[in-house]
């Protein structure tokens, strides 16, 4: 499944300036692994011991994956995965 992953501005140094990364995978976990495969620096910034860091939010087409199946959330054709910092608001 080909998907677009949106990268926040502050992390684009790790993607060579790319705002979007095209990868494939059938779950969020697989998609993120594919992103890390292409841009190794991102792995440590986004995950810790195999889990998302506690201030990282990931959305599949606008819906927070914590309301779905976390890293096992399935990805459909044309879905967009967005990585955002969780520290805004309030």
């Amino acid at each position, binding site marked *: 499944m080909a998907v677009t992953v949106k990268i926040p*501005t502050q992390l684009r140094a790790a993607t060579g300036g790319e705002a979007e990364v095209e990868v494939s995978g059938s779950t969020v976990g697989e998609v993120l692994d594919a992103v890390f495969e292409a841009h190794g620096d991102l792995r440590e910034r986004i995950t810790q011991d195999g889990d998302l860091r506690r201030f990282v939010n990931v959305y599949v087409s606008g819906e927070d994956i914590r309301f779905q199946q976390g890293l096992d959330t399935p990805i459909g054709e044309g879905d967009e995965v967005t990585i955002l910092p969780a520290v805004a608001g309030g």
Partner: protein
Amino acid sequence: MSLESLKCKECGSTYELGASYFCENCFGPLEASYDHSGLDADGAKRRIQAGSQGIWRYADFLPFEGRPGDPLEPGLTPLLRADRLAERLGLNAELWVKNDAANPTHSFKDRVVAVAVAKARELGFDTVACASTGNLANAVAAHAAAAGLESYVFVPANLEEQKLLATGIYGTNLVGVRGNYDDVNRLCTQLAETRPWAFVNVNLRPYYSEGSKTLAYETVEQLGWELPDRVVCPIASGSLFTKVGRGFQEWLDIGLVAGEQPVFNGAQAQGCSPVATAFAEGWDVCKPQKPETIAKSLAIGDPADGPYALEQARKTGGRVDSVTDEEIKDGIRLLAETTGIFTETAGGVTVGVLRKLAERGDIGDGERVVVYITGEGLKTLDAARDRFQMHEIDPDLDSFESEFRQEVAV
């Protein structure tokens, strides 16, 4: 004390003093960091006492490189002794209510927004914006108007009408988003990347949140430079709760006040209680929830400072509790009829939790307790409906007498 840098609360990485809010290494939140070394307690106290009648009297402790200014200065709201409320709750305690509805736009949000707008000007922004559950919207629209800045205010479209009206009137660009607060927040986080705006609670959040410390400073000053034993404070994102703690700690550290941190009791609505749930379960992170409560100003299902609010409650021997919508309405009524203060639903949550603490026997004899009332009842009028009865009569004496039958004839 002077502002030094922005520092990641998770990993300690430091950043320049710009409009950035999260750590590039670990995504942790950035916080304003100061150099305390040049500040002596006596000098700081003198400057405070000679200062303005609002939050700028605490400028030594706020995140500015120059002197902050703001035409709509909030702060120095009343701290009132609430003996009748204590009595109703069966408490033999020294109970105080900090009425922060007495701010320019009637909520504690004036404190954080005044700081954020002043900072936005210091950083050279000409447009401010926010993601809001209502009170923040009022404050951003008003402070932007007073400062002559353009503003964009994003709220859930289904917000209380009073809060929409009290925002739109200031001439802001009011945007109702078809979704809940967490959807609004996500949208604003994305917009903050593409628009050259100061989102007060996104890219200016490290500065904005510092404004909440002034509630702690005022509490200490109004108690005659002493600390309370316990505070009861509502939790939405957890920012207010943790920053009040930081305010007390800073003054303890530099010797402006002696003693130790009060016990921190957090208050949430049961219909949106990610922090109370995490507290009860012993988790150190919050599981997000879809809010379903009348306390819309606290309806943040994914609280950004949740982990820190949990730490603050646990390290001070406090707790985080939640109350039902019915208990919220009862809390509003109880506060109104014992103190003369009409609060919004968030205040009903706080008073509801105070009642819970009293019933559970958590509050000891002689304890000095401060309850933070963060908003105004006129903004959530629906919560007051059906809580009392009006006597309708004809304009004559008989009609009055028959409605209010005298036990003893005149």
